[in-house]
């Protein structure tokens, strides 16, 4: 039994007559019995109902009945009867009962309203939760866009809509997904500067807009608009305010009802979530690309190192050690070693200007070409000329150049001959520690005029050939000070009688000690060779 029914029962017991409470959902609808403790329950005719005056009297099969309006938000009437002809007492009883019932109905109305509100909010919270879940488990917006749009449209009762994302290059809002008025119609990309399109306007202003049917109709939105349209921006919120990323538009509300401020707030909240998801997806994609690039760079670096020969390549005529440290994963410094027959040994050290993929490509071309041409002639200039022919076009197209020193040591003849195209750090150090630079014979390849030159000098079995690149002498410390060629030569002179591998280790120990924890800004290569 309801609270109202208990009150009516108590009233009947106290005053000895029945009571009935009718309610009406709409002024034109018939009355329904909400509760009764006896008396006539058939409701009075609607036309006889009075709103504000005192109780009206009517005759029923069970006797006379007084009918009184119960004030409040719920449309309700109280019937008390049967009553005596002198109904003064009954009218007094009604004045006591009506306020009590009014209060109870008001409480019930508020409870019902709160329940409805809660149900409505629950739907919205559920929508936001669902969207969070969808966005949380997808990497690309495209995967989730349709589900999100359908869920939002369902919640606000829209039949049509579109989710558009900004394409900054051409300045367009591209439809990612649409709920179309005509399934055969193709939604068009919308220029962000279009003066009529509501979608473009919302993107520009970053403010939601609700327009009625017939207002600002644009051909760009025809595919997903019917009548009034609610459009909200998709914004990635940042400390500086936010960056617009796209737009959500909804239209064609079922039953012709208008969109409310509540709908706008809800769709704006969804737009904010989508904005964060788009940005996250972009960051994830960038991170994946970065990782892929880093992985390819590591692979290229490994391949490049595999192209470089071991010092054993010139045994038994010579004892050699070499090392290359690339600055950017793949670099432009390289060396190659050749046994040329007749006791001759070829040593090539090169530095392609710049580093990265292009430098590595030129390096690979020179390495492979050198392996062929070095065996065809003992003349260093001829070999280098052949190398230039191989990479000339590549150097011209990339505006790079190549400094290299190619030296041929003839142990038996006691001579060293070299062609040096702009490589500054090539030396012979004799047993007494006297350092002689193998001076450049020509400008770097790719810069100079045609025609290469050769120089020669004596070579003693105790002589040491040392060639390093400018990444070694230009290595910077934390204050930006470069190591300098003189300090490298000091180490080389001091260690000149050690085996080449220890000499190379000594140079790199000097470089690393100078740089500390800094990464090299340029490739570093060192080659040390002694005849046997």
């Amino acid at each position, binding site marked *: 039994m309801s609270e109202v029914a208990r009150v009516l029962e108590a009233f009947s017991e106290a005053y000895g007559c029945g009571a009935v409470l009718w309610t009406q959902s709409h002024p034109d609808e018939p009355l329904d019995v909400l509760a009764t403790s006896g008396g006539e329950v058939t409701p009075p005719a609607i036309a006889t109902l009075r709103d504000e005056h005192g109780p009206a009297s009517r005759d029923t099969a069970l006797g006379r009945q007084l009918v009184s309006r119960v004030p409040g938000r719920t449309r309700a009437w109280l019937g008390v009867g049967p009553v005596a002809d002198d109904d003064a007492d009954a009218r007094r009883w009604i004045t006591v009962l009506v306020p009590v019932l009014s209060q109870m109905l008001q409480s019930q109305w508020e409870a019902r309203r709160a329940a409805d509100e809660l149900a409505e909010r629950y739907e919205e919270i559920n929508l936001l939760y669902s969207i969070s879940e969808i966005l949380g488990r997808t990497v690309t917006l495209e995967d989730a866009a349709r589900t999100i749009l359908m869920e939002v449209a369902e919640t606000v009762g829209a039949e049509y809509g579109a989710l558009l994302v900004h394409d900054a290059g051409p300045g367009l809002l591209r439809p990612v997904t649409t709920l179309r008025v005509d399934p055969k119609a193709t939604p068009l990309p919308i220029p962000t500067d279009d003066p009529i399109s509501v979608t473009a306007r919302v993107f520009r202003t970053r403010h939601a807009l609700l327009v009625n049917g017939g207002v600002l109709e644009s051909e760009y939105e025809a595919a997903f608009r019917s009548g009034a349209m609610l459009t909200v921006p998709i914004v990635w919120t940042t400390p500086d305010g936010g960056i617009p990323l796209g737009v959500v538009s909804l239209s064609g509300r079922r039953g012709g009802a208008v969109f409310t401020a509540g709908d706008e707030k809800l769709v704006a909240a969804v737009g904010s979530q989508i904005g964060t998801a788009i940005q996250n997806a972009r960051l994830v994609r960038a991170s994946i690309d970065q990782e892929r690039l880093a992985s390819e760079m590591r692979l290229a670096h490994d391949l490049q190192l595999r192209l470089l020969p071991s010092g054993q390549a010139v045994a038994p005529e010579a004892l050699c050690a070499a090392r290359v440290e690339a600055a950017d994963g793949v670099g432009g410094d390289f060396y190659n070693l050749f046994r040329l027959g007749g006791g001759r040994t070829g040593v090539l050290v090169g530095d392609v200007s710049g580093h990265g993929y292009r430098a590595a490509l030129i390096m690979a071309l020179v390495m492979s070409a050198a392996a062929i041409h070095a065996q065809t002639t003992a003349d260093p200039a001829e070999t280098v000329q052949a190398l230039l022919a191989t990479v000339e076009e590549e150097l011209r197209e990339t*505006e790079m150049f190549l400094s290299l020193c190619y030296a041929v040591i003839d142990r038996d003849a006691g001579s060293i001959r070299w062609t040096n195209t702009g490589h500054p750090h090539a030396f012979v150090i004799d047993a007494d520690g006297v350092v002689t630079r193998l001076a450049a014979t020509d*400008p770097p390849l790719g*810069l100079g005029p045609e025609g290469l030159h050769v120089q020669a000098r004596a070579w003693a079995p105790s002589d040491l050939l040392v060639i390093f690149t400018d990444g070694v002498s230009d290595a910077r410390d934390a204050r930006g000070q470069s190591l300098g060629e003189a300090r490298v030569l000091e180490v080389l002179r001091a260690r000149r009688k050690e085996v080449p591998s220890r000499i190379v280790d000594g140079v790199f120990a000097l470089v690393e000690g100078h740089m500390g924890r800094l990464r090299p800004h*340029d490739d570093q290569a060192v080659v040390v060779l002694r005849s046997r």
Partner: protein
Amino acid sequence: MSLQVTKHGDIVVIDVDGQLIVGNRQELKQRVLDEAEGGARRILIDFAKTAYIDSSGLGVLVSLAKRLRELGGDLRLANLNDDLQTLFELTKLDSLFQIADTRERALESF
């Protein structure tokens, strides 16, 4: 690095203040090409305030010298410090440029 451009008759003088390296070489290149586009054919780059030029900076200088020669012009250098002078000599780049030890001599040499 900053660049200052002045004119001495029909000679355009570009003063370079700071290092010429991979990160800013394009700035110098574009400036020289802009001047050439505007009709300049005799250009002097003054390195009095430049302590260091890396290999990419050298590449740009050679590329610009070639370009100006193709246009019937000439690019000359002045005021290289001792280290840079040595670098140009060691790399034989001094054979590609006319290099003067003062600005005045460079201007007179055109």
